[in-house]
């Protein structure tokens, strides 16, 4: 089975949609066409002569590593940035998109990479955010409510309390909210910028179905994702970008995933990180005894050994996130104990329960949070501060810091995570992958025994992803237990020694070695242990 076949199987291979292709070839006129768009930031040319066109009913995938100019192109098309040069044509007429408002009026609706939503406001308000109205009379509000309910049900497949503040909903529900908001505007061109990264497999497929349904009615879609399986599943056309330029356009069927990756990166990239056998497993580093994460869920037990990489997987909100936070000491399990083997100086057979975050760090448990911008780093501060903050105590002599010591420590740890410090001083200007490397390097000085990674490769481009996999494997080989929550099937299949799959707040399957396949994972996601158990 080739890589791409496996991916197709993973998402339940769907017919490309005959009507859509027919429509695309019939209407020669593009809905939106970009011609020669350029944008510079100071000396950096973020976008050079960017051109693409999206025909009615067509799904165009925009591919590229971070910093390749995709985001800039999206921002220009959605009116956030105005281009230095070039034209945007909507239905054949040149338009100037001075603001997102203008872009929306022209029918270009964007779902941005980051979930942009007013978290204090109700879900209903968020869904209709930006829709001006002459008056908010009672019938007008009732109509909005009804439309929102229908749109939500169509995409998510269930109902939701529209009056709850968005901040009380899960990350995935918030993501659904911004997608539904876009759908409610009946876009001519829908831009989905990494909008699938927080969706689970089931919802992603529902989103794809909705996009296909709308494409039949003539909607165009510009789709951006780092996940090749998704791209291969939905796109009719692939536009690849590198260093601000469009480097290739392929139609569906002209290229497979491997060709596209070569096109994006400009070279061959190993399809997956190597998986080592279970031979390198060391003594147990984490032991879970009769743990329940929520009231009235089934208790479970598990161990993680030093030297292995263990994945935590499941549909969003099924317990894996709670478990990794419990391991980090950021929350306590509903019942049961989480034991972690002692840090340096402690005997290995002296595992102790982790109850607080600080206590965990003292025992060598470190945590890399999910949302870099919110929890991982301070983007206005220099890289060196973001690196050294938790371990600053090591660099002070009689209470006075020695910057030179910090610097040399950073150089050493940066090498370990394969990060080359450039001229950039502020961490905010680094690419997502490099930011993640700095965050990981931060904890190397704490001599971690257990490294907890909460979806560390989200929003990281393919090349850097593979670099990160090497780093994780290196840390495991050096004797650390690596626990990594991941929402990406590929990653789970290729990187993990074992995968713990969660369903309904409890451990539903434990897959090891070659039993970790897209099929076994997906069936375990949906709590069908019959198949999963077969691989166990």
């Amino acid at each position, binding site marked *: 089975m080739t890589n791409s076949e496996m991916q197709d199987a993973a998402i339940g291979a769907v017919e490309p949609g005959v009507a859509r292709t027919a429509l695309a070839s019939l209407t020669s006129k593009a809905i939106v066409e970009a011609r020669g768009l350029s944008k510079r930031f100071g000396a950096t040319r973020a976008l050079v002569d960017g051109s693409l066109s999206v025909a009615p009913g067509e799904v165009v995938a925009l591919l590229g590593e971070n910093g390749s100019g995709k985001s800039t192109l999206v921002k220009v098309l959605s009116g956030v940035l105005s*281009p*230095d040069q*070039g034209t945007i044509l909507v239905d054949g007429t040149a338009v*100037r998109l001075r603001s997102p408002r203008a872009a929306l009026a022209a029918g270009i609706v964007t779902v941005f990479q980051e979930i942009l939503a007013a978290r204090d406001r109700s879900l209903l308000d968020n869904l209709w955010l930006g829709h001006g109205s002459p008056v908010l009379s009672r019938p007008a509000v009732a109509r909005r409510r009804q439309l929102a309910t229908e749109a939500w049900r169509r995409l998510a497949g269930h109902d939701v309390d529209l009056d709850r503040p968005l901040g009380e909903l899960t990350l995935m529900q918030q993501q659904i909210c911004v997608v539904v908001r876009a759908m409610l505007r009946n876009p001519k061109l829908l831009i989905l910028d990494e909008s699938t990264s927080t969706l689970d497999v089931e919802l992603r497929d529902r989103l794809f179905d909705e996009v296909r349904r709308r494409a039949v009615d003539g909607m165009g879609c510009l789709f951006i994702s780092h996940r090749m399986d998704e791209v291969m599943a939905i796109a009719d056309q692939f536009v690849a970008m590198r260093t601000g330029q469009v480097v290739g356009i392929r139609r569906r069927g002209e290229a497979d995933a491997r060709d596209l990756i070569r096109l994006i990166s400009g070279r061959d990239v190993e399809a997956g990180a190597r998986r080592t056998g279970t031979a390198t497993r060391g003594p147990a580093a984490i032991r879970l005894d009769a743990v329940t994460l929520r009231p009235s869920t089934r208790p479970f037990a598990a161990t993680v050994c030093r030297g292995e990489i263990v994945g935590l997987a499941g549909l969003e909100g099924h317990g894996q996130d709670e478990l990794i936070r419990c391991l980090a000491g950021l929350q306590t399990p509903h019942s049961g104990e989480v034991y972690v083997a002692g840090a340096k100086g402690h005997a290995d057979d002296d595992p102790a329960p982790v109850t607080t975050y600080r206590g965990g760090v003292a025992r060598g448990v470190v945590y890399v949070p999910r949302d870099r911008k919110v929890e991982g780093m*301070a983007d206005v*501060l220099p890289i060196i501060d973001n690196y050294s903050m938790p371990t*600053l105590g090591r660099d002070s002599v009689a209470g006075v810091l020695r910057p030179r010591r910090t610097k040399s420590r950073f150089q050493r740890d940066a090498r370990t995570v394969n990060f080359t410090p450039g001229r950039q001083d502020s961490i905010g200007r680094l690419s997502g992958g490099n930011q993640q490397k700095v965050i990981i390097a931060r904890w190397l000085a704490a001599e971690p025994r257990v490294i907890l990674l909460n979806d560390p490769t989200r929003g990281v481009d393919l090349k850097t992803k593979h670099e990160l996999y090497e780093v994780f494997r290196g840390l495991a080989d050096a004797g650390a237990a690596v626990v990594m929550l991941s929402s990406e099937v590929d990653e789970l299949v290729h990187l993990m020694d074992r995968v713990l799959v969660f369903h309904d707040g409890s451990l539903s399957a434990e897959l090891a070695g070659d039993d970790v396949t897209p099929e076994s994972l997906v069936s375990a996601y949906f709590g069908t242990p019959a198949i999963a158990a077969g691989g166990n």
Partner: protein
Amino acid sequence: MSVNTAVIPPRVRNLIEFSPRVLGALTSGPIQVVSVILVFLVGAAAVPGFAEPYSVKAMLVIASFLGIAALGQTFVVLIGGIDLSVPALIGAGNVIGARLSGEGMNSVEVIAILLLVGLLVGAVNGLVTSAWHLPPLVVTLATGSVVGGAILIWTNATLSGKAPTWLTQFTSAASSTGPLPVAPVVVLWLALAVVAQVFIRRSRPGRQIFMLGANRPAAELMLVSERAISAVCFGLSGALAGLAGFLLTGFTGAGLFTVGDPYLFQSIAAVVIGGTSLLGGRGGVIRSVLGSLTLVELTTLLVGQSLSSAAQQAVLGAVIVCVTVLYGRDRSVRDRI
């Protein structure tokens, strides 16, 4: 058929794009120095006697009271807070200092007591804001009100006490510090600023202040204790306000509870003019030294224009806004997406 929508000639465009970077570079320090010099030159040109040694010395003394309070305010602003209890604590420092000195207490003990009181009130501010996640604006408003009220009750709202005799000399514009031709209080201020600068640059809690101000949840995960750092910052602000209040008795002669009132907005203005962001995480203490100098120069300049105090206030308000336009601007929404 590529249409060029950009009608601006490239050279001009480059200039426009370049200017934010130039401004960006300048905001990292020198522009504050430039503004101190610029305002000084304008003053020297517009007001007779402005640049005379005596007048410069007087300005430095006035700036030192403000500057010491502003140093404390800077710590609080760096963690994204604001301290409205500064005037009450200046008043408290002034009144308690004068009372205790009037009763014949040793000045060293008086200062120790004042620093302790300021530190305690400040620490309460810091602990309450961080423990309940309350807006510092409201908490410090409340504690300031309590402290100010308590002082009123204690003194029955009358002038009381007496400044220690050495302090008059210490804060007199005419005196000098050894070989230095400025009043000792100015030297004290600058020394405190240097210590503060070393603290924020070269100590663990100092660096943690920036992290806390820049990103609270991330700081917590980087083992920065929000409570401890908040307590330290507000505590320092309180202690320095108390000290400024005590030094002001050299000016007021006796304990005057309203002496701190002008410092409420002035201490904030000095920090902001210095270029420390009220959003936290960006700025520094040396900037506040320069900010205090600029603010005092401006006030003196306006007095020199023989404006009434009311008109002075009006002009000052407008000037504060204009000065911050130069380097106190936020990022636009577009740049934050």
